[in-house]
């Protein structure tokens, strides 16, 4: 009669627990394999790009097709493109989200709209570019301009706004609406005074995500309004402009004799904008999730 622990795992249980440990460790390793490249990329960009970063880099206009000077006109151009795209995508997207969350019944129309949103999000960026060229540059005769490029970006980012806003509208409890309706408020009064103020976080998250997408995209703007090289700041929505993303594409592939640190410095700038915006969105979401009382 052995005096071993009667609760010790049997051979079979021991094998299961061993497999459990291997599985847990294995999946952790795979997850890290996915995330380590991201950290590696960041490290490479910082190390290689840091020599090119200085205040002058942000405030000087580019010279010699981008091989020398700074990125001021590209930065300003990107701000223009993003702002105009936002001004178009946000109202349309929020309206669509309100319709889907507050008015739509479960019928064929709603299903069609949902399918369209899913597909709009999945259309390749170069197809959006072709659409922009056909619809905005030629058909509506905006020409190659900030307006055409921003419209293209707006169509592309519309699903992002809709999905983020719809989620936050649906998170507002039904009881809030019931209370408002019982006071005699119309559907719109309820939305305007009760639902929207309680879902500001979602709309803001949508806004930030649109900025991220619009700042980073290259293909949709390269044929609709962004140009290779231009020293002038844009003066209005019908001007052409430089953009950060296209500038990065050009200094890394099109222009010869670019010092090695220049593309990395531009890439670092771009990724810092995108990551800080994303981090802001994440922080915002967590903060609000913690604060919500309902």
């Amino acid at each position, binding site marked *: 009669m052995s005096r071993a622990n009667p609760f010790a795992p049997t051979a079979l249980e021991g094998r299961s627990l061993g497999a459990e440990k291997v599985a847990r460790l294995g999946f952790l390793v*795979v997850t890290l394999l*996915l*995330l380590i490249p991201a950290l590696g990329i960041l490290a490479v960009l910082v190390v290689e790009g840091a020599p090119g970063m200085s205040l002058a880099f942000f405030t000087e206009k580019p010279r010699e097709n981008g091989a020398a000077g700074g990125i001021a006109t590209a930065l300003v151009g990107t701000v223009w493109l993003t702002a105009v795209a936002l001004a178009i995508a946000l109202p349309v997207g929020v309206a669509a989200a309100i319709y889907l969350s507050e*008015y739509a019944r479960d019928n064929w129309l709603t299903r069609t709209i949902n399918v369209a949103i899913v597909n709009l999000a*999945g259309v390749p960026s170069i197809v959006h570019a072709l659409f922009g060229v056909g619809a905005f540059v030629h058909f509506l005769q905006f020409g190659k301009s900030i307006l055409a490029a921003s419209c293209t970006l707006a169509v592309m980012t519309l*699903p992002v706004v809709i999905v983020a806003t719809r989620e936050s509208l649906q998170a507002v409890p039904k009881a809030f609406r019931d209370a408002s309706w019982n006071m005699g408020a119309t559907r719109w009064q309820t939305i305007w005074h009760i639902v929207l103020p309680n879902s500001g976080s979602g709309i803001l998250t949508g806004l930030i995500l649109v900025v991220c997408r619009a700042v980073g995209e*290259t293909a949709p703007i390269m*044929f609709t309004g962004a140009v290779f090289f231009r020293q002038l700041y844009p003066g209005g929505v019908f001007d052409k402009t430089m953009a950060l993303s296209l500038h990065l594409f050009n200094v890394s592939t099109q222009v010869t004799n670019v010092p090695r640190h220049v593309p*990395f410095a531009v890439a670092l700038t771009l990724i810092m904008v995108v990551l800080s915006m994303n981090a802001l969105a994440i922080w915002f979401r967590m903060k609000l999730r913690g604060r919500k009382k309902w």
Partner: protein
Amino acid sequence: MTTAQQPPTPHRGQPAWAAALDTRDRAWWNDLAMRGVVLAGGMSAVLFIVAIFGFIASQGFEFIVNRLDLGELLLGVRWEPTVEPPQYGALPLIAGTGWITAVAMAIAVPLAFGAAIYVGEFARGKQREWLKIGIELLAAIPSVVWGVIGLHVMKPIIQELFGVQVGLNVLNAGIILGLMAAPIMATIAEDALKAVPDSYREAAEALGATKWQVVWKVVLPHARPGLSAAVLLGIGRAFGETIAVLMASGHRLMIPESIFDSAATLTATIAAELGEAAVGGDHYQVLFVLGMLLFLITFAINLTADWIVRGRRSKA
């Protein structure tokens, strides 16, 4: 809303009792107007999808009707739009897209599913939050930055590691695309795992199953439709990526014979050539025809993925 309601004024020819019953005040008309506005917003997504197809088809319309030889476009091996006579055989582009997407999926599927299983089933608390944030940030890296990574970082690594001359090739683009697609696939796959009811897990655990046994025998089989949707959407994503592929693939207009050959994809070819093609010319139109092909394929992929996910949800 705060002001007291005005008694309704009778319309011309309306009896007083009808006017008294008419409660359509300004708020009512406002409500009606805004209902129209948001409906229009909701319809915009449908409008844009239809418009995208319509505009792209109309730009390529003349070519499709008069000069399109579908056999040559899909099976021709020479893509030489600028020589005389021009050759529009897109097989090299289709083959390049296929190769690169296949390599990307070979990399992305294990990474994405592994990460989804770990984050969804094993990780807890803070660790889980941080991993999710990491995956989200990875998904936010812009395409053109990935392109720079392929061009300046991956290229020398591949040349060194495999001793090959050309560092911009199918492997390079595939790795880049795989890393780009993996975070999105991981997020969708994790949603699919989350959709499996907890009672299934509890039942298995009550029978003495370990976590791994629960995942392997219970969760994964039930999440299979969602996981296949994740793969499909990943393929759609890799397939439609443009700038990163253009920069990392070497853009050589020939059918690649191994993963160390440079290749060109449909998307990258449009991006590389649209700027130079004369507006309205044959070359310009054939690029729109390629765009139509891309649109139709991604449309089919997205529709199928959506159908798989929805079909499952309505059953559950």
